[in-house]
């Protein structure tokens, strides 16, 4: 089962800086394991973010995104307490959704 993401959402002025850490192997499909077998491609291909229910960020990713991905989103006109929901889906259809409230920066 996918591990929880770690999300920081800090308000700076009227912009919320959302920074996300994700535990995911982001396998390229070109790596061999210790036994010499090719490890199948396994990577997040969709990353979406909503702000108080409205979509703000729709990311399409490839296997070139680093293992244990780090990404960031900036939302203007945000306020402390606003709800930010982050969801990913990978190419094996594993999914994970986590949410956080915007905090004072």
């Amino acid at each position, binding site marked *: 089962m996918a*591990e929880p993401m*770690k999300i920081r959402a800090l308000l700076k002025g009227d912009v919320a800086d959302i920074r996300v*850490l994700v535990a995911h192997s982001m396998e390229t499909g070109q790596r061999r*394991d*210790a036994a010499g077998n090719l*490890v199948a491609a396994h990577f997040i291909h969709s990353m979406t973010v909503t702000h108080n229910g409205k979509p703000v960020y729709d990311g399409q990713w490839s296997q070139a995104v680093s293992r*244990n991905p780090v990404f960031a989103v900036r939302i203007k006109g945000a306020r402390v307490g606003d709800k930010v929901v982050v969801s990913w889906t990978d190419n094996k259809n594993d999914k994970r959704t986590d949410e956080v409230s915007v905090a004072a920066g």
Partner: protein
Amino acid sequence: MNLSSRAAAICAFALALATGSGPVTAQSKPEDGLALGRKMLAEDNPGDLWVERGQRLFTAKRGPKNASLEKCDLGMGPGVVKGAFAQLPRYFADTDKVQDLESRLLTCMVELQGFKREDIIRTRFGTLDRDSDMEALVSYVGAASNGLRMNVRLTHAKEREMYKAGEYAFYRRSGPLDFACVTCHGESGKRIRLQDLPNMTKAEEMREVVATGWPAYRGTHSTVRTMQHRLYDCFWQMRLPDLGFASDLSVALTAYLNYSANGGEIKLPGVRR
């Protein structure tokens, strides 16, 4: 990094070796081009994911004895993680040994949870195929001391013995490259290729290395590495035989280095290349 001492050091080398070549072309130093990337990587630390996983592992009932680590005494009393990193390595009466964080966790996982020692040692370092529980636990315990200061003491005779052994080992040259720790870590402002080499004979540099260094998320390894791994890696680069995990030699070096970092404010896990 003190520029004048750096320049002086380079001159000293040049004179000593009688090569005295002129300055490299007047280009910007390579570290200028690296600084931005290092800053950007330090801002978001995937090691924080290891801290959370470590916390889940610490409190979960696991192993043949179906026990958590909440009775594990890391020197602050059973289950107390806050402040534990700051005072390790230290002497433990139950094992009659000086132990660092990894070797103490190993004791707890074997004694309290019933894991086999060799299984924990086999999986001590994570790979791209398998995460390491040890790396997660060390991240959790390390981060629990954030904001505190390193405070390793040498009150027990065995602690003093280990400190001196670590010092001896730090200066001990061996192997096909004639290296000791001090070969690369005895001067300030030096680099192996583009990687800065901390001067481990200087307390102010050691405070940063120990208190903000290991455990650290290593980008090249895509996992958190611990001090035991850092030392293992150094021995590997020195072309020495595998450094035994939790061996007295590794704990002695850690005792020597951590003691010299006393007073350093803890901020873990770190982020490294």
